[in-house]
């Protein structure tokens, strides 16, 4: 159980915990905006932790840089998505939930 | 297989039409039509030196990219493929001429008629690629090329009816090719090669091979519009533009039949059973009777002709029970194989010429009289003498009366049937001919009947009628070089080869 393995395990466990939190938030929260809130923030942190854990495990600096860039682009992407979806949802008048057929 | 003489002509047969299609994209309507016509006549001209080369050197091959079959793809031009390519070139060339004048006279809604030429040249290249290819996955790609271009051509007329029929045709085509691909996956998994000749040698009977046979046969039967799965053909062919419906029924359905023929004789010889051949024969017989009966019931001329396509394709299927021999019968002792194969080849050619001529004539009638209901056929002899002649001649060939190509095909089929003592197919063949005679003579009776006055007849360019007549006469002329063609075909496999089945055979060939 070398030091790096210990770090990897801790980071991965933390990442998984955050992912679990994000998913539960997505299921439990009452309306769209709170779900957006949960999903975007928590999942990004979860991905960041897992990415850091794996970067340590893989060890090669190039891979670590690549993983960090991937995480950075995900931050950009999901925050934009969160903003756009929220703005889209605000623009719609009373949202009639879609009743499944028959 | 790789030691045969190579020739660049084989690759040009696919490359030239695509080159012309790409060049034609750069022009507007007028220039595009001219390039398209040039391309089609060029491809027609290209087919004959290729056939001559095969006649001289026998089977000619082309190793694409210089790699040998298990890894690379092999294009093989053997006599059987040469005859199919020759027929496609002749019929396609005349249809291109017809289309050239047709689109100068009739602009379709939305100006999409300019798209006819690139799509038709891509379709032609796909058909040539399909007849040449010796590789299963490459056949899938060419089937998709032919399928997408055929549906695109079918919906060119822009009417809602043709769009719905086109969507149904496309969904059937995709489902059929996915079924075919599933069979290819199983064959590759069990033998590790995709080349038809290598596969034939390496294949071992077993549940995987039998299932691959079933799913590939069903897939190809959907695309060849064989009886139980022919629902998409009549609306698609009837709603399309005249030159397009001629292409679809004369050429496109023949491609997948050609693959079915090759797969059954060269690849699945191992796991075929006598019952499988009989089942395909039954499907063919019912198709002949049902298609002809439906054609008799239709009111619109194009629907009559479309249903008769389904019937004539049934004749092609009735060749299979003669080729798949009964258990224990050796291929050498079966003397009826040569007439059976001749029947298949001649039915393809005769039906190609006659059906194309019929659809082109129907197009002329729609131009002249505005609609193609049966009532419009009245007094056709006086109004459009040449078209009436074309319909009569093509009808004779479809029925199979003596001098025509259709007769030679049905005669050889009957000869094969009686020599192989499978007499139960004869009533279906004769019944089909009687029903076909029913609707052809019904059309001719109307053509000679006096018409009510006051039906305006719009002038039709003479060239269109000449094209229809040339094709109809062509279905008679193909009989003259019969013996040369048969000798030319008999020199190499798979012509006149039977599929020996073992007494215990594999599982039932077809569910």
């Amino acid at each position, binding site marked *: 159980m070398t030091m790096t393995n210990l770090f990897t395990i801790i980071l991965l466990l933390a990442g998984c915990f955050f992912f679990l939190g994000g998913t539960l938030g*997505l299921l439990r929260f009452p309306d769209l905006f709170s*779900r957006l809130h949960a999903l975007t923030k928590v999942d990004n942190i*979860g991905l960041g932790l897992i990415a850091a854990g*794996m970067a340590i495990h893989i060890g090669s600096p190039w891979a670590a840089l690549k993983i960090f860039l991937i995480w950075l682009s995900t931050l950009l992407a999901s925050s934009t998505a969160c903003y*756009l979806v929220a703005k889209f949802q605000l*623009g719609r008048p009373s949202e009639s939930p879609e009743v499944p057929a028959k | 297989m790789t030691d045969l003489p190579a020739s660049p002509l084989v690759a040009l047969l696919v490359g030239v039409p695509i080159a012309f299609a790409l060049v034609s994209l750069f022009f507007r309507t007028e220039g595009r039509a001219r390039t398209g016509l040039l391309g089609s006549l060029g491809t027609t001209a290209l087919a004959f030196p290729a056939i001559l080369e095969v006649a001289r050197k026998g089977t000619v091959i082309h190793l694409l990219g210089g790699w040998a079959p298990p890894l690379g793809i092999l294009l093989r031009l053997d006599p059987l493929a040469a005859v199919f390519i020759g027929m496609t070139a002749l019929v396609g060339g005349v249809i291109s001429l017809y289309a050239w004048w047709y689109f100068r006279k009739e602009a379709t809604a939305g100006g999409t008629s300019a798209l006819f030429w690139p799509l038709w040249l891509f379709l032609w290249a796909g058909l040539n690629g399909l007849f040449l290819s010796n590789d299963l996955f490459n056949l899938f790609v060419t089937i998709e090329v032919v399928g997408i271009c055929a549906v695109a051509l079918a919906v060119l007329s822009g009417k809602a009816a043709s769009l719905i029929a086109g969507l149904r045709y496309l969904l059937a085509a995709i489902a059929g090719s996915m079924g075919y691909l599933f069979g290819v996956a199983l064959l590759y998994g069990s033998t590790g090669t995709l080349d038809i000749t290598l596969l034939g040698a390496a294949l071992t009977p077993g549940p995987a091979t039998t299932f691959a046979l079933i799913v590939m046969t069903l897939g190809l039967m959907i695309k060849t519009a064989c009886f139980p799965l022919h629902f998409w053909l009549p609306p698609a062919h009837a709603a399309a533009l005249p030159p397009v419906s001629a292409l679809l029924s004369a050429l496109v359905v023949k491609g997948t039949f050609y693959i079915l023929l090759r797969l059954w004789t060269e690849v699945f010889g191992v796991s075929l059973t006598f019952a499988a051949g009989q089942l395909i024969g039954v499907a063919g017989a019912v198709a002949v009777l049902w298609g002809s009966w439906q054609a008799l019931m239709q009111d619109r001329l194009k629907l009559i002709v479309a249903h008769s396509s389904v019937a004539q394709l049934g004749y092609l299927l009735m060749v299979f029970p003669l080729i798949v021999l009964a258990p224990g019968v050796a291929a050498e002792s079966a003397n009826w194989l040569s007439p059976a194969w001749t029947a298949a080849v001649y039915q393809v050619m005769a039906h190609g010429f006659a059906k194309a001529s019929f659809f082109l004539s129907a197009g002329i009638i729609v131009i002249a009289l505005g609609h193609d209901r049966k009532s419009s056929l009245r007094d056709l002899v006086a109004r459009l003498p040449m078209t009436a002649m074309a319909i009569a001649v093509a009808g004779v060939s479809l029925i199979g009366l003596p001098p025509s190509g259709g007769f030679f095909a049905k005669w050889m089929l009957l000869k094969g049937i009686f020599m192989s003592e499978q007499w139960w197919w004869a009533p279906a063949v004769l019944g089909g001919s009687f029903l076909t005679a029913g609707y052809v003579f019904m059309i001719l009776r109307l053509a000679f009947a006096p018409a009510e006055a006051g039906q305006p007849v719009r002038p039709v360019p003479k060239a269109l009628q000449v094209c229809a007549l040339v094709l109809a006469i062509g279905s008679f002329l193909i009989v003259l070089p019969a013996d040369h063609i048969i000798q030319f075909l008999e020199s190499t496999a798979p012509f006149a080869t039977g599929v020996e089945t073992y007494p215990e055979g594999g599982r039932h060939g077809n569910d």
Partner: protein
Amino acid sequence: MNGFFIGVCLFLLLNICLGLLRVWRGPTVADRLLTTQLFGTTGMAILIVLAGYLGELTLLNVAITFNVLAVLLVICFVQVWKPGKKGGKA
């Protein structure tokens, strides 16, 4: 150590299955779009773990594609379903 990575992958996959419920229950189309976001991010996490576990660093390119995919879907959804156009119901 390897068993641990497999465990993490399994956990993330179960996460995706949980997310499915939102696709099923989600009242509005926007909710369903959210689950595509969730799948995208969780999928990338699984890919990164697999990359480390299998030693296949090329899986990171697949992660980049997942990221592009999520962005493309959201922007297309927002631009096409703009409320400005005829209010299409969800």
